[in-house]
């Protein structure tokens, strides 16, 4: 029997904590904290599989807590649960906290249960993998980066990053060209705007999250839309969201972190899914993702071969 899954909830409203604890006490070992600073203290000594945090708390914001928790327990799966739609908080929670889901209050009890189940499985898997070997030496292998953005500034940053790290830079100006590249090459990193040649790239990103969970997507975009970001986190499992105009330092940091993660994935021989995306909520988008998945068929075959 494997060890029970430990889930920690952090929220300044005790009633939220009581409600969640009562809902999940049968399925998990549930820890609750109403003060994020105390939660951080506990995380120093108590390992958890899943950490669910509120955003607006008096002592510390949820995204800040999740970012610090990511340092303390990188293998725990982090989830933001908030009643506010706050773009900056969501960006910080994704870019620094590496969140798995952005959930909104009031939540659907069944969806919350499903999300925690997925999160628990992923965390258990990550921890099993992490235990045998200490941080293995990562060789400086060349990666393939596909750029889906015509912006010269993005190209400049990505180009510099690739030539410095010895990575291969692939480019596409439209979706079908992108699909061709994705089917022919083993793409590790994807840098994409939300628009490519007039087309919306979100369905492609969402399809890739399902067809190729190890591909890391960095989104660079001038749009500031919380709902769109929320969907990209939950349904496309994007790695970074960088608002345009891009800040070179942040972009570079994101690319480096993505490359490091991609090398780790390459070093793991077995097909282990440590990322898992929700199906898109809107029907037309689900259909679009379905058809894109068909077109990405060759990619899937090759990956599972």
């Amino acid at each position, binding site marked *: 029997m494997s060890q029970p899954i430990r889930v920690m909830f952090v929220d300044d*409203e005790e009633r939220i904590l009581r*409600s969640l604890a009562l809902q999940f006490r049968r399925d998990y070992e549930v820890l609750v904290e109403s003060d994020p600073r105390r939660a951080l203290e506990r995380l120093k000594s108590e390992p958890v599989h899943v950490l669910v945090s509120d955003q607006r708390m008096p002592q510390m914001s949820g995204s800040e807590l999740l970012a610090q928790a990511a340092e303390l327990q990188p293998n725990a799966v982090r989830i933001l649960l908030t009643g506010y739609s706050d773009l900056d908080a969501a960006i910080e929670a994704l870019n620094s906290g590496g969140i798995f889901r952005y959930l909104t209050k009031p939540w659907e*009890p069944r969806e919350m249960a499903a999300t925690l189940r997925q999160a628990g499985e992923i965390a258990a898997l990550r921890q099993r993998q992490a235990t045998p070997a200490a941080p293995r030496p990562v060789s400086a292998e060349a990666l393939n980066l596909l750029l889906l953005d015509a912006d010269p500034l993005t190209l400049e940053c990505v180009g510099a990053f690739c030539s410095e790290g010895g990575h291969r830079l692939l480019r596409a100006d439209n979706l079908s060209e992108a699909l061709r590249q994705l089917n022919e090459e083993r793409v590790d990193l994807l840098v994409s705007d939300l628009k490519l040649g007039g087309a919306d790239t979100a369905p492609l990103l969402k399809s890739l999250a399902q067809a190729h969970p190890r591909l890391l997507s960095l989104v660079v975009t001038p749009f500031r839309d919380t709902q769109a970001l929320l969907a990209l986190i939950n349904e496309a499992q994007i790695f970074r969201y960088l608002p345009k105009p891009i800040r070179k330092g942040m972009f570079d940091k994101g690319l480096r972190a993505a490359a490091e993660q991609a090398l780790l994935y390459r070093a793991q021989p077995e097909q282990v899914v440590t990322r898992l995306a929700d199906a898109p909520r809107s029907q037309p988008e689900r259909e679009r993702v379905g058809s894109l998945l068909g077109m990405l068929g060759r990619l899937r075959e090759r990956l599972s071969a």
Partner: protein
Amino acid sequence: MEVVPALGRLLRRVEPLQAQVSISDVADRLLRPEHTAVLSLPVVDADGRPLGLVSRSTLQDIFMQRFGRDLWGRKPVSEVMNPAPLVVSLDTSLEEAARQITAQLQSPIRDDFVLVDEQGLYQGLGTVLDLLKAMEHRVAQRNRVLRKALVDLKESQTQLVQSEKMASLGQMVAGVAHELNTPLGYVKNNVQLLRELTRPLLELADAQAALGDCLADPACAEDDLARALEEAGRLRELAAPELLAEDLEQLFADTGYGLQQIGELVVGLKDFARLDRAMSEEIDLNDCIRSALVIARNSIKDKAEVHQQLGELPRIACAPSQINQVLLNLLTNAAQAMEGFGRIQVKSWSENGQVLISVQDNGCGMPREVLERIFDPFYTTKPVGQGTGLGLSISFKIIQDHGGNIRVVSEPGRGTRFLISLPCSGAEELKRSA
């Protein structure tokens, strides 16, 4: 269409005289009906350049002298004309012409002025009266334009004030809507939990009722009774009502509390907007403070703790929704001034026939050059697109309209304090102006 220069409209094409024409002839000409409107006649040289003006009053002066006509009548007009008349080019603007003419005008007005083309050739005469009429017309036109501009300006000001109000209202509604999500979150979850937790209780009740039926029925078979007994025992264990009691109690209490919170927020929103009340009434300003604090709570709670020190206040006549707008503005400003987690102190008291409210923060404070301008319309230290720069200027206006005043002291790094004072007896004036 030919473009008529501004002075063209004033042009009177009076036939000019040659320098040698006799004074007597000039006098006759002045009497002709086409010359009744002019005060003088022009004299030009052979090329048509103006040499001077001979005015009616000069001739009158001459002829009023004894034997004047006999002595002077045959002399050329050049001897009595004004050799330095006012000459204005036709392409001069009306304003410039008026400036030149009034600068040299003498009282009484004896002369007209000469209008010339670009080459300086005589074109006609202009009269001061025509010029005045043209100026008056121009001024009236300007006034119309200015009046329209003023109306437009007032309208756009009203629109700006309205949009500022809508912006703060929208911000507030969005904040409260989001705040509702927290109690909604646990209330919704709790109701689902209560449904799940009570299901085994209902099943247990059914099983116990069946067992009761068996016991009451003498014809009930031993087997059936045993089965009913066993079923009731099994469900009792499953439902564990003694363990459940505490959970249920807690869930009901939390759910009740959550619903109360939701109710308070909705009432707070309604009180805040006061759309259902009269424009002006006797109000306890502490109620305004409390309702603004409920509304502002969501934007404050992660930035500062709020300390209230509300003294007893006489009720005063005011427009509560406007006062609420001022208080919300001060509170959210205070929260935004925080670097790290701070403290906001709200005090109210009354003294010397005045009600005083102070909102003090220990945020970043303001340097003097900012402090001097904070009540100016459109002055903002926020980036473009965030904030209209009207919040405090509207607050200032609202308090002023209530016959009170709003003062501010601030120190960079230490914090800021706003002090509102409102007269207790402002009632009558406000009712009249409202």
